[in-house]
């Protein structure tokens, strides 16, 4: 009985994960090799050529998504590192208050926050309107429907997921290590680049995982802040599944997105250990 206890404990959760996480992936693979339409039904034809077809057809959107994800992640690292650094080393007794401030925006739905950005950045909105009427900007200047708006929205929405893991890593750096470096005549810059920065890299890696993956597969920012020229692979999948009922195409696209992501994620987790990344994620 005692030996069975852990298995009984994981049974409900394990079943849930197996039935609704693992099994659906198999069904998605199956749907992608079907042919037909919603009226006449779908038949399993094992038409594997669909993978090559959708890849050629939506190559632009795949590449754009990866490009936006990479750009957004890089900007997020640059913006987040100084914030995490300051909270970890200079936050003093108010550390937890600052962390709370970083997290508070999450109490507003991310759709609602992105809609607010749409209003803020509208062509005659609160920011651009006054600048235009004051003659500081040309009348046809716009931010919405541009690449800048989409990447800006991605960085905005996922920045806290970069700040937190970097903070967690920096928080663990023993200040005595920095003192030791300086006792050994490292300059302030030297102590940072040779001691603090390398020790914080696991946090940066966790942050990359937690921002790059959702940014690349995001479609809300692209549909609210971008235009037809900024559609990402998520928009294609969403339209194919929910509007066109073109299930095979949608499934093939999401299957390839998943495959690319999973290979990346597991290679990454293997190199760094799932424990560390999970811990950072749970904070």
């Amino acid at each position, binding site marked *: 009985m005692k030996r069975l206890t*852990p298995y009984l404990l*994981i049974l*409900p*959760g*394990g079943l*849930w*994960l197996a039935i*609704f*996480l*693992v*099994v*659906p992936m198999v069904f*998605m693979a*199956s*749907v992608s090799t079907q042919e037909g339409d919603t009226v006449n039904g779908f038949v399993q034809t094992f038409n594997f050529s669909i993978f090559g077809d959708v890849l050629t057809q939506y190559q632009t959107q795949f590449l754009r998504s990866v490009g936006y994800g990479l750009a957004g992640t890089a900007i997020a690292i640059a*913006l987040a590192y100084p914030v995490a650094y*300051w909270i970890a*080393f*200079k936050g003093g007794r108010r550390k*937890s208050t*600052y962390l709370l401030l970083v997290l*508070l925006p*999450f*109490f*507003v*739905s*991310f*759709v*609602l*926050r992105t*809609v*607010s950005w*749409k*209003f*803020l950045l*509208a062509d005659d909105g609160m920011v651009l309107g006054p600048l235009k009427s004051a003659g500081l900007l040309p009348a046809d200047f716009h931010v919405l429907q541009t690449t800048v708006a989409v990447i800006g929205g991605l960085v905005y929405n996922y920045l806290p997921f970069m700040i937190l893991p970097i903070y967690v890593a920096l928080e663990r750096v023993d*200040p005595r290590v920095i003192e030791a470096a*300086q*006792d050994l005549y*490292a*300059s302030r810059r030297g102590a940072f680049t040779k001691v603090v920065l390398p020790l914080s890299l696991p946090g940066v890696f966790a942050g990359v*995982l937690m921002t790059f*993956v*959702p940014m*690349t597969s995001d479609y*809300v920012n692209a549909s609210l802040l971008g235009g037809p020229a900024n559609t990402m692979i998520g928009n294609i999948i969403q339209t194919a*599944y*929910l509007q066109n009922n073109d*299930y095979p195409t*949608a499934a093939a696209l*999401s299957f390839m*997105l*998943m495959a690319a*992501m*999973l290979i990346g*994620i597991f290679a990454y987790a293997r190199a760094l250990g*799932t*424990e560390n990344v*999970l811990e950072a994620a*749970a904070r």
Partner: protein
Amino acid sequence: MSAPTVSAPQTTARPASRRRLGDRLLWIYVWLILAWLFLPIAVMIVFGFNDTQSKSNVTWQGFTLKWWGRLDEHPQLTEAVINSLQVAVVSTLIVTVIGTLLGLALGRYKFRGQGATNLVLFAAIASPELVMGASLLSLFISVAVQTGFVTVVIAHVLFSLSFVAITVRARVVGLDPSIEEAARDLGASTWVTFWRVTFPMILPGVVSGALLAFALSIDDFVITEFTSGAVHTFPLWIMGATRNGVPPQVNIIGTLIFAVGVAIAVFNAVSSRRRT
């Protein structure tokens, strides 16, 4: 924990004033980023008081409280908010129970398959919402299950399960096993030990896991869109409304949810400070 004080040796130290200037600039930078994070929220709150005449609530037209009295003007919006709350309550109840059991198993026992379970939990956190939603929809289409309230709850339990399990596991790992041993030495049965000793000690982890699951559920858009069918939740309704204009009531409901969230967070922060 005290703030780390970095004292550089005299030989390499820069003038103190310059160092202080650097810190000062960094401090300003942090507040600029925080201001950026809060800017759309400020807009949301302020425009709940906007005396707008048209359907769209974009330009400021003066202060009014009238929308606060007409919160239930859009029946479908009210219905969407109620749906959101119902989904969040039901999925939180389910996920708290099964997630706590999972966290207990992972934190307390060593068993075969533990590594695999950890890996699946990790995959559930790391896989993009879009992929989760798309694959769930593939399953529901294939087995001809009508999407709706039940499928949304299934999806919400799925994506918050890992977070609850990990939060509880962290608490379980931090427990001192000798306390439970003492209870057993004093003649308590396994059942009594669990309910009288173990459970009260892991309760803070269970509560924060439940709060996290509730917040994730209320906020979710992507997986919900894929699994909801004709049922609309609050974020889904907002997304649909962007085509015709978002009414001020959306801003007010957003503000109310934000206020409740802030209140819980502040209460939590204050009470945990008092405990230590």
